[in-house]
């Protein structure tokens, strides 16, 4: 089922072109929208919500047109902006209840849903305190709660991991995965870190400078870019030689060796080589890919 689609969508501001004939589509599940800062991610979300009129092109969200049915779209969609958007002098509970009412929920239902949603995002006793005293992690949770409180069919999460520490990032990503699977709400999540989205998304759309760079399922992505990183205490030169001799493509990055995975047999070859050379294995992990890698790849393809 297609939850959103654009056709030649273009947005020009007086000085910059934010989106340039963008044609994408996304199905249900978790869709990652990746791009560097200024790639047009936030502009795309605003166009899809009907908050900005497009210069050219069309879009549909949940089968509705943002140009004519933006109110119906906004009733069925949740939005978590990238920037801070919380008043400091009200409590998370009061704020979330108010936002639920603004989405059309009656007051008692709004109270119930707000309590449920705040619990789901992981805010407990602190939800009765004014938001002004919250940490960045708690604020991100409140922002997420207000986007979910009216039980939307689709949520747009704009840079939800911004400003979070590694633990907070992991929690947020796990929560996003739960929203997409357990809650049954489709998610469009933006980030400038592809490695982060790899862990939670079903599909990834990469845009750069307002143009579509790539759109594919996450499996295709990881297949195309699979590699493993090996770190041994001593003797990485010997290991590199042996692996090269065994027909693997090995590149050295300081103390680390990166080996391209050509087949599942690669893992066995690495294991055997480490054992035979009697080396102390420190680390063996899947290579993390950043957005830059995709850009480099796409450019070399052209």
């Amino acid at each position, binding site marked *: 089922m297609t939850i959103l689609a654009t056709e030649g969508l273009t947005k020009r501001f007086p000085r910059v072109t934010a989106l340039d004939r963008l044609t994408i589509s996304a199905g249900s599940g978790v869709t990652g929208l990746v791009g560097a800062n200024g790639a047009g991610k936030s502009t795309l979300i605003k166009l899809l*919500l009907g*908050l*900005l009129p497009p210069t050219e092109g069309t879009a549909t969200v949940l089968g509705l047109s943002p140009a004519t049915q933006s*109110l*119906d779209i*906004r*009733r069925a*969609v949740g*939005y978590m*902006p990238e*920037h*801070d*958007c*919380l*008043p*400091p*002098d*009200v409590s998370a509970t*009061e704020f979330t209840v*108010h*936002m639920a*009412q*603004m*989405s*059309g*929920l*009656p*007051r008692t*239902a709004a109270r119930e*849903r707000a309590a*449920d949603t705040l619990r*789901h995002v992981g805010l407990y006793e602190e939800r009765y305190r*004014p938001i002004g005293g919250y940490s960045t992690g708690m604020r991100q949770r409140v922002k997420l709660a*207000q986007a979910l409180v*009216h*039980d939307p069919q689709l949520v747009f999460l704009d840079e939800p991991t911004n400003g979070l520490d590694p633990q907070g990032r992991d929690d947020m990503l796990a929560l996003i995965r*739960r929203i997409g699977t*357990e*809650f*049954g709400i489709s998610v469009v999540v933006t980030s400038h870190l592809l490695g982060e989205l790899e862990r939670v998304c079903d599909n990834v759309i990469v845009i750069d400078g307002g143009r579509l760079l790539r759109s594919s399922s996450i499996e295709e992505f990881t297949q195309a870019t699979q590699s493993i990183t090996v770190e041994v205490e001593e003797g990485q030169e010997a290991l590199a030689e042996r692996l090269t001799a065994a027909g693997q493509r090995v590149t050295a990055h300081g103390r680390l060796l990166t080996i391209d995975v050509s087949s599942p047999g690669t893992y066995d070859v690495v294991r055997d080589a480490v054992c035979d050379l009697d080396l102390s294995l420190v680390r063996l992990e899947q290579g993390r890919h950043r957005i830059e890698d995709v850009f480099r790849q796409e450019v070399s393809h052209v």
Partner: protein
Amino acid sequence: MSEPVSVPAPGAPPTPTGVIHDIGYRHYEGPRLGRGHALAALTLHSLRGIFGLGRTARGKIMPFLLAGVMMLPAVVSIAVMALIKRQGVSYPSYAVTMQAVLAVFLAAQSPYLVAPDLRFRVLPLYLSRPTTTADYVVAKLAAMALAMFLLIAVPLTVLFVGELLVDLPGPPNTGDYLAAMATSVIYAVLLASVGVVLASFTPRRGLGVAAVIALYLLSSAISAVLVGVLMSVSRDGAAAWAWLINPFFLVDAVQVWLFGTNPNNDGGYPAGAGGPVAAVAVLAVIALCVTALVLRYRKAASS
């Protein structure tokens, strides 16, 4: 060593106490109401905010202090009526007499209404819901107008109830009371539109407060100086027009024209055209402010 609780009878189902069940995510199946409901919710939320309800104790001090001051003349008047059986402050003069308090309330609370949404960027959250910029403007104006109306109408009503209870000689001043109540609607709408539009142009509360109070001081000072100068050169006709520069006397002139009450300035308002002109001026100011507000928020929404 006897713990009967932990030993369930064989065959009986275990009865755990105090277990929190994670029932997982539940979808919302209930009704989803329309724009009207959201508009009412935003108006009520804003009105509560103006009086500091649901906010910190510090936010409640100013509005309740000023509302208390607004009640003083009514309370004193009731005491006067009870003791010496004569009417104290008259209904149509209440708002004009208390104009400084009303102006301070407007200046202090209208930035509270709009500035935080701009400063903390809450506005995008409203606009990403089924709420248009027009809905937002209407709700904010309605909340401020309601607050100003309550501020004037509550003391008037208390005073009227007091008058009925004290039972002065002669018929009660029901006509004056109703005229003052109707005029307080005009006061509320005019003051709210001016206050909210000025406050909405800056995301900083301090500047908003200063702008509203400066406009009031400026208009009342210009009006008073002009009246003084024109009276001293015996141009009483022109002086009568100069009163209308002060928004409170402007509305008072409309009250005199509509309900035939006594003017609350020295020397009255221009005869003949004065009333209709004042009424048109009130409507023009309101229209101007609402247009400016809509344009302001259309710009804020697209950024």
